């Protein structure tokens, strides 16, 4: 039997398959057939300090092998999250990572401190400095190495828990941002967030999405995500959580070879919220059949052409 246990920072996960923020809600209130206990971790939908209602519709549209979304960080706000959702996690047989988004450095710190102030089952944070769908705080922060570094330095002061930084691909050189957040004390990097894209309806001459620009996800972005993960893996020594169009175990193996220690399943959850659990089983069978004792034997083992 293959060993799937995965270590990031001081935390041990039962496997390296996590759900990506925004594609699995808060992990509660899912259809009866979804078994979250099979997952390595759930990364929650982005939490902001104040509740947000999100962007007007249309918010999503399908594109070739992918989709565009601009939800606008709709969420219940940190206070209700603490009151109504965090207590539920006691009964969850998987690790919970809270994704935090914000408009200002101060607000990121406030959200993190609110959650730090209570005793909970939260094992860490994923800091979203890469949302393309809000006016402030998302991507503009994530494209600037110094701003990113300052934020992570500040957040690091307030938590001992796992601090993961989610990077945007909408930059000239992602390794600069990766190095900056590593130096600032991040425990891990997750990459990539969605790529800025756009659709146009030729019947109405309007953008396909209300906010014009939106985030592209799904298998269409997997080659870009793989390249970014590979580049980051050569630039930093902290673990990388690969994200971008993973829909089956073969895709997971690609990301592991490219240098990821774990992966997150995103768009595939929207087709089947059990996608992550199915991939865990597939990966297990593949590794067993390949007589690989521990999945980590694949991490970064890409064989480059001479």
């Amino acid at each position, binding site marked *: 039997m293959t060993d799937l246990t995965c270590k990031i920072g001081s935390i041990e996960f039962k496997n390296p398959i996590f759900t990506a923020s925004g594609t699995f809600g808060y992990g509660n209130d899912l259809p009866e057939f979804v078994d979250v206990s099979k997952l390595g971790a759930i990364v929650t939908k982005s939490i902001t300090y104040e509740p947000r209602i999100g962007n007007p*519709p249309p918010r999503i549209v399908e594109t070739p092998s992918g989709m565009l979304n601009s939800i606008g960080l709709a969420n219940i706000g940190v206070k209700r999250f603490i009151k109504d959702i965090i207590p539920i996690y006691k009964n969850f047989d998987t690790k919970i990572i809270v994704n935090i988004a914000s408009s200002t450095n101060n607000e990121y710190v406030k959200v993190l401190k609110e959650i730090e102030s209570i005793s909970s089952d939260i094992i860490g944070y994923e800091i979203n400095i890469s949302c393309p769908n809000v006016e402030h705080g998302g991507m503009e922060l994530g494209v600037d190495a110094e701003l990113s570094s300052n934020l992570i330095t500040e957040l690091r002061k307030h938590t001992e828990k796992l601090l993961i930084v989610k990077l945007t691909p909408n930059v000239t050189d992602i390794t600069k941002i990766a190095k900056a957040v590593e130096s600032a004390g991040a425990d891990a990097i997750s990459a990539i967030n969605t790529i800025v894209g756009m659709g146009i309806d030729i019947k109405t001459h309007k953008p396909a999405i209300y906010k014009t620009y939106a985030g592209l996800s799904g298998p269409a972005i997997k080659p870009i995500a793989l390249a970014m993960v590979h580049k980051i893996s050569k630039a930093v020594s902290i673990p990388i959580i690969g994200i971008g169009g993973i*829909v089956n175990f073969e895709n997971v193996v690609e990301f592991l070879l490219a240098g990821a220690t774990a992966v997150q399943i995103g768009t595939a959850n929207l087709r089947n919220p059990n996608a992550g659990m199915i991939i865990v089983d597939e990966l297990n069978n593949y590794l067993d059949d390949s007589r690989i004792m521990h999945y980590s034997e694949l991490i970064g083992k890409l064989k480059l052409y001479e």
Partner: protein
Amino acid sequence: MIIDKSEIIENTQIAKDIWRMVFKSAEIADRYLGAGQFVAVLANDDWEHPIRRPMSIANVTDDRISIIYKVFGFVTEALTNLKSEDYVNVLGPIGNTFNVKYETFYPILIGGGIGLSPILNLSKCLVYKGIDFTMIIGAKTSTEHFLEHNPNENLFLSTDDGTLGIKGTVIEGLNIVLKDIRNPKIFACGPEPMLHSIQKMLEEKSIPAQFSVESYMACGVGICQGCAMHKKQNDGYFLVCKDGPVFEANEVRFD
């Protein structure tokens, strides 16, 4: 709600670009609550078209579930190629149902375009319960209709081009029908402009209505938050998959 690989019993064209598919799913039928609920269908297993298509349930008999769909893109075109004994990947049933207070209102059912699917479903429920009602079905042109225009049987058809039934939209039909009816309540499904027109008309006349709304949607289970629908009361949004698809007409805002 369940995901089921369902065996197709029948998949036939019933009008221009309009198809009916009947598939077998005891799992979905067991969980089915009534007219208004929908399923989300995956035409094939590849990832070129990642997202399921929401489609209203037109009928449930034992373990047989019917949907009526319009062909307007690659995915719906691909659906037409499926044959009986093929399998289709279906998530459902999703959402709430029409709530008919039979004892106090006279139901007028309105279906526009492919919105007639849940309306036909509702009409069958009313027939089964022995409740009298009037139905108005609108289409662009006669070839999109597969029912008979029959005012004597309280079934009115309208076409935008006048080639069948009443010339104009379902609004013209509704104006005719409303003259003879006391205490009406409208149950409507169709494209947003149609529902918006009905909403404006009924507001002036203070007639209650329930709408089953259509929306872009990715997951159908409430996690993607893609199917936002403006609330009338405040700046917030409903999710069509979780809070709908059926809403009281005065709860929602079209713009």
